């Protein structure tokens, strides 16, 4: 009887996975079919040639920003591992910083009348800002730099757990006998091992690079626009010429991501092989911690400056150049947000919490009831990979197409589903990490004592893994809370998250209101992750 029960339970896990696979395949198949069906090879090649400058700039910016993010994250990881565990916990709070607020903050910092220009004006004495002459070269640089630094906290967080597994102290002791300096140990021995285990986060950030709208639209170049912007422009447009480009852009983006992933993994092989064999660093003795500290300070300063400027914008009535601080203050922005958006704010918190918890329960349930964890993990890995690699904007367009083919499901159902599947990869990767780290001996001992699986889960696993589960919940919550393309592409404005409203307000005239919204947007996930990390520090099992 128990055998039958087990079989049913295992089948339920596979059933859930097959169901999810089925829907994701339908979504991807639908968008590919629609695009290919409406596209002739001639028009595709024609568009490909026309968009070549856009494709090149998208490709170049995203690859370069990923490479920069990897190196910066590597040095920061080393610094944090050796110096400051508390600072590493601070980084997780930065993961919860909304992309939109970050991009707008960068604009206000670096504009010709921005904060840095105002600080300069104190010394120079100019009453009128200098003439702005930002071209696309500078825009590309700001895009690469900003996107790289934004991805650093995420990479460091994963990089730290990889670092711990590598056991770099032991490596250092061993290779110092061979005459390696600190720098050569780091670059010749540790970096190749570290980067080999960072495939997945790299994949995540490169896919994000190709699908994000906030960075490419607010900070990216305009002549030509990046493909990510063009695709949303075509989606919105009533211009028949722009609408016609949509199918080509979908195909170009999918091919672009695929090519970028292949290129990055090829580059990784080349870099690993180069760093393993080069003797360049042997004779150089340099304090590598200083590089890590420098980048860490830059990341912290940048985020702090963004929070600072957003806060002052949120309480300013008038704040004209060259004044460093607002000349008149108002709390209208805050009161407007609280009065008009409280319901949506709490609704978004509630929805994100429910979806994250549901995701975590499903994932844990599937792993727990299955004897064949490896197979479940493999299939979930494949599913997560599919969700992450196909750019989000295209996947959501697929969902939107499918919605019209399956009208018996409501918009709300599709909205929740589209949020659910975007949390799934994060929940999966973190849950897998936790299960990998868990010592199975505890459960084996419990089995010997005849304790049921359910009991051993609640009395042994859950208490030991509580911190892990909390972090998984925190990260999933913040990922869900900051989704916004669903509100545009899937529900077309009928169902929104608070994040969407903040973006809409930034298109209007009241910066103080939009900035108040921006800070409010940061608050729930920031607070949640801060609490989780404080608990993590003081309640380590």
């Amino acid at each position, binding site marked *: 009887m128990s055998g039958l029960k087990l079989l049913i339970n295992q089948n339920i896990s596979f059933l859930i996975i097959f169901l999810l696979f089925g829907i994701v395949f339908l979504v991807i198949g639908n968008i590919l079919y629609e695009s290919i069906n409406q596209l002739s090879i001639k028009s595709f090649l024609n568009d490909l040639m026309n968009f070549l400058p856009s494709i090149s700039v998208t490709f170049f910016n995203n690859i370069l920003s990923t490479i920069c993010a990897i190196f910066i994250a590597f040095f920061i990881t080393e610094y944090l591992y050796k110096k400051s565990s508390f600072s590493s916990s601070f980084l997780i709070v930065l993961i919860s910083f909304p992309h939109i607020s970050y991009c707008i903050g960068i604009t206000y910092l670096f*504009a*010709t*009348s921005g904060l840095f220009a105002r600080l300069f004006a104190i010394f120079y004495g100019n*009453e*009128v*800002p200098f*003439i*702005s*002459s*930002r*071209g*696309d070269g500078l*825009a590309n640089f700001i895009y690469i730099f900003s996107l790289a630094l934004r991805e650093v906290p995420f990479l460091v967080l994963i990089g730290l757990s990889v670092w711990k597994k590598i056991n770099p102290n032991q490596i250092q002791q061993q290779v110092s006998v061979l005459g390696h300096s600190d720098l050569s140990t780091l670059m010749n021995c540790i970096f190749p091992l570290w980067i080999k285990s960072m495939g997945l986060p790299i994949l995540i950030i490169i896919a994000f690079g190709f699908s994000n709208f906030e960075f490419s*639209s607010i900070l990216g170049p*305009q*002549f*030509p*626009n990046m493909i990510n912007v063009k695709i949303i*422009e075509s989606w*919105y*447009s*009533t*211009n*028949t*010429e*722009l609408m016609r480009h949509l199918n080509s852009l979908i195909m170009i983006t999918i091919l672009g991501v695929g090519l970028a992933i292949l290129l990055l993994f090829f580059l990784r092989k080349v870099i690993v092989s180069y760093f393993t064999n080069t003797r360049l660093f042997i004779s150089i003795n340099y304090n590598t911690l200083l590089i890590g500290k420098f980048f860490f300070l830059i990341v912290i300063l940048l985020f702090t400056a963004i929070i600072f400027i957003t806060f002052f914008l949120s309480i300013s*009535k*008038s704040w*004209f*150049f060259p004044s460093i601080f607002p000349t*008149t203050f*108002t709390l209208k922005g805050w009161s*407007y947000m609280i009065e*008009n958006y409280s319901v949506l704010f709490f609704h978004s918190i509630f929805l994100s919490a429910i979806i994250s918890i549901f995701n975590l329960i499903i994932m844990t349930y599937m792993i727990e009831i299955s004897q064949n964890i490896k197979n479940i993990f493999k299939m979930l890995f494949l599913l997560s990979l599919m969700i992450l690699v196909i750019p989000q904007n295209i996947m959501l367009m697929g969902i939107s197409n499918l*919605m*019209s083919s399956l*009208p018996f499901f409501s*918009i709300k159902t599709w909205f929740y589903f589209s949020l659910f599947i975007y949390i799934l990869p994060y929940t999966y990767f973190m849950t897998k990490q936790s299960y990998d780290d868990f010592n199975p001996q505890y459960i084996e001992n419990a089995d010997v004592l005849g304790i049921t699986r359910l009991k051993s889960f609640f009395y042994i696993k859950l208490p030991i893994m509580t911190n892990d589960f909390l972090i998984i919940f925190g990260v999933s919550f913040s990922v869900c809370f900051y989704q916004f393309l669903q509100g*545009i592409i899937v529900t*077309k*404005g*009928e169902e*929104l998250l608070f994040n*969407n*409203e903040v*973006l*809409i*307000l*930034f*298109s*209007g*005239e*009241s*910066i103080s*209101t939009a900035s108040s919204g921006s800070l409010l947007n940061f608050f729930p996930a920031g607070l949640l992750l801060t609490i989780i990390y404080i608990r993590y520090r003081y309640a380590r099992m």
Partner: protein
Amino acid sequence: MKSLLNTLTKIIFLIFIYHSLYSADVNFHAWGGSVIINDFIKQASKDLKKKNINLNHTKITDIAESIKILETDKKINKLQKGSIDLMWVNGENFHRLKKNQLLFGPIDTIDNYKFINTDDQSLHNDFGEPVEGLEVPWGRAQFVLIYDSKLIQKPPQTIEQLRKFIKNNPGRFTYPQIPDFHGTTFLKQLLYEIVDDQSILQKPFSNCLNPCEPLKNLMIYLNDIHPFLWNQGKRFPKSAAETVPLLSNRELWLTISFNPNMAAVNVSSGNLRDVTRTTSFIGGAIGNTHYLAIPFNSPNKKASLEVINYLISPQSQADKSNIEIWGDPTVLDFTKMNEIQKKMFLDKQSVHILPNYQIPYLEEPHYSWTEAIENEWFKTFN
């Protein structure tokens, strides 16, 4: 205690029954980026509660999202219970809705339509497309230039003066990136100044081909001024709203708007400096009308008509045109109002605004020009 609870439950139940029988929800899809506009709609929603209508403002990023919903509804044969009851629309979006038969109408049968001048063609042609009762005018707009009077004593008022200003003050002027609505309107305004025979702009673009000289000349003009624009014409603001902080911080000295009261509204809210003033092209400035329309599958058409009737009432239009509320010029005809109604429209004196009827009104070019201008711009600069 028990009887009190019973009575309370009954009262709540009765209220619920009454509410569900006699009140109607109207789902209004309108852009949600502007705090002042959102506040105006919120106030209208409060007023409409008295008529047992719940006006829900769905704050959208772009009305194109709502059109996509309607197109999907039509495709899947959802002809009765759509999710949109009322839309704020005009221009090429209206054209798309009309062409695909996504609107309910005629809706110009409502009471307060009597205040609208039926002879004024600018209200009955939306970007050259006859309205035919499928939408009701809600507000007007006219192209204006907003400038910092401390830095510019004599603002440009013709296309040549604008060229001179741009070249003498490099980096201090720009326009929103195409296909933003304000950016395209600016180019249409330039086109009006460039063409010899303005009537060609009222005809479909197909009348101006092989080659279309005005469009060619427009691109020559733009090529000439682009190196002297903000960021040397290599970067443009995404919207007209984005130019407000640039003007207030004096990165820009001159910008464009489509609301003659925009400067006054923003000075009063602290977004712009007190020295901000408004002007326009003396030869005439493009004006257009924005409208309210009801989708074909709205489940609450009757209530939506009531909402439109309220929104074009003298009281609501007077509030809307008040620069302390929204500052959007009215669509109503003063000659059709009585004295009490006329008095509602406070004649606010403000140094920041351009007095009504000072600049001749130019009609929006035929909608087909929008796409032609955008495509030519993309071809030349993108």
